[in-house]
């Protein structure tokens, strides 16, 4: 699975161009603000139809333009060449695969999975519970179409139920229907989350133990909001909290209130961890995600590593890359003064990114 070449038009500050990417490793280097992250964002958007930096596609349109276009020739997991085209004009997004229009993002998500390592990932460790829920939801929905389906049903139903809670004289019969749907989709989502987090935690803990100079044993714990898995039991939980929900005008129980906690032996990891340790933990989260993906599908996702090796010293960096054990295609960004890979390697390509354009370099300016 890989990007063979990528076409870009009016996307962020990137110059309109076609970039050759048929290499195992693509190294982008340049100063901040020149377009390195935007290029990774373009790749991510081609994989999933949406960005990791913004929820509003308009943000990705080059200043002063009406929309943007991205396209790519890729090699899918079966080794076939496919063409992905995506354009956003105003608020309208259109997507096609092999020149056939695709109306549901679902058909794209499984074509070329990628994992982004971003500097902001520390927020998954340090941020609010919804950041960790989002992290696991995004991971699971790229693995399991039923998870994606159930999550859509759950979220839509929750919105409608909350709207109904705000009404002056809500229709009580309608709550019964919404509760039924929340219980049905929610119990399946809970089961998937519980199973995934248990396996994931083992890999994560092991990675952190190896890479960090930290004796602490850390683990990820799932604390669901509903303490039962049975649909009928969940329905009675929802029914018994209806009065409180009505009073507060929002649904107070459910998988949207699940907590996912990172603990060491003494309690919350973030209470005692340094920023460096948290950053390392966030790197390990992404690496564990890649491992988990590989275990579940047997496939090597495309890796997008944005500025994340910066804070690792050379020993840790080697250890990290060794543990990551990249078999699939990888894209890295580096600052100009940063030491990156040295020397020439088969299948590695260097680009210099300046003012939105990518210039191919022979060997990279070896440091």
């Amino acid at each position, binding site marked *: 699975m890989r990007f063979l070449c990528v076409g870009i038009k009016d996307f962020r500050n990137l110059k309109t161009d076609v970039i050759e990417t048929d290499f195992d490793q693509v190294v982008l280097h340049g100063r901040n603000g020149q377009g390195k992250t935007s290029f990774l964002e373009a790749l991510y958007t081609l994989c999933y139809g949406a960005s990791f930096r913004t929820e509003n596609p308009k943000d990705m349109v080059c200043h002063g333009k009406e929309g943007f276009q991205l396209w790519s020739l890729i090699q899918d997991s079966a080794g076939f060449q496919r063409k992905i085209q995506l354009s956003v004009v105003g608020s309208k997004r259109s997507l096609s695969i092999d020149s056939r229009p695709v109306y*549901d993002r679902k058909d794209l998500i499984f074509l070329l999975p990628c994992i982004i390592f971003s500097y902001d990932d520390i927020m998954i460790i340090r941020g609010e519970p919804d950041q960790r829920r989002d992290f696991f939801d995004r991971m699971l929905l790229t693995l399991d*179409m039923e998870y994606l389906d159930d999550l859509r049903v759950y979220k839509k*139903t929750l919105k*409608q139920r909350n709207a109904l809670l705000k009404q002056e004289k809500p229709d009580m*019969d*309608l709550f019964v229907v919404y509760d039924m749907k929340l219980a049905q989709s929610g119990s399946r989502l809970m089961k998937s989350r519980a199973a995934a987090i248990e396996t994931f935690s083992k890999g994560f803990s092991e990675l952190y133990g190896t890479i960090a100079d930290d004796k602490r044993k850390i683990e990820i714990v799932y604390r669901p909001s509903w303490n039962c898995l049975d649909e009928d039991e969940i329905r009675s939980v929802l029914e018994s909290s209806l009065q409180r929900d009505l009073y507060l005008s929002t649904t107070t129980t459910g998988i949207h209130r699940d907590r996912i906690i990172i603990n060491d032996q003494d309690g919350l990891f973030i209470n005692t961890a340094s920023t460096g340790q948290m950053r390392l933990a966030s790197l390990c989260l992404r690496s564990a995600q890649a491992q988990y993906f590989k275990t579940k599908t047997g496939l090597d996702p495309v890796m997008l590593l944005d500025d994340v090796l910066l804070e690792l010293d050379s020993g840790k960096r080697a250890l990290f890359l060794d543990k990551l054990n990249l078999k699939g295609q990888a894209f890295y960004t580096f600052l100009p003064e940063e030491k990156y890979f040295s020397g020439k390697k088969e299948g590695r390509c260097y680009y210099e990114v300046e003012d939105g354009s990518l210039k191919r370099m022979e060997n990279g300016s070896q440091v």
Partner: protein
Amino acid sequence: MTELDDLIKHLSMLPSVGPKSASRIAFFLVGSQKGFNESLSRLIGEIKEKVFPCPICGSYSETSPCPICSDPGRDQSLLCIVEQPQDVLTIQSIGAYNGLFHVLGGTLNPLEGIGADKLNIRSLVERVEKGSFKEIIFATNPTEEGDTTALYIKRLLERKGDFIFSRLASGIPIGGDLGFASRNTLMRSLRGRTTF
């Protein structure tokens, strides 16, 4: 030219007519053959008097009740529930259904302020209570709102008697290839599979 602008503005309010098509239609009307505009405006002017919702099923009709509701040859034990009057035409055009219809006029949607009181649900319950229906077929759209509305009505009708409830199957198109079905379609047809 304010008259022309006004016409274009009105035309562009029609469904699937954008400003470009609206001005094309307007210019066509300006240059149209004698008599065409007169008969068109007469038809438009009278349409709401001539065609109105059937008081029984809610489908559009020129007679009251509509030809379907007043046809004793139709199977009085079958009731098909749809969202819009157009859906009746669509199902009718296949010619494979000989029961009766009920048009809801939309779906339950608290986010848009649409509750049961804004749909033809009360008339449906009364109709079912008085009628001799054995089977209720839900032909609402395969959306979350369509699904919710079907479940809601099913609950209401379950209290009124012992009916067989069924739902339109959704799945792979006939003559279609599994490999070309969208993942969504495949997923739905797998979940809604039938015994064989």
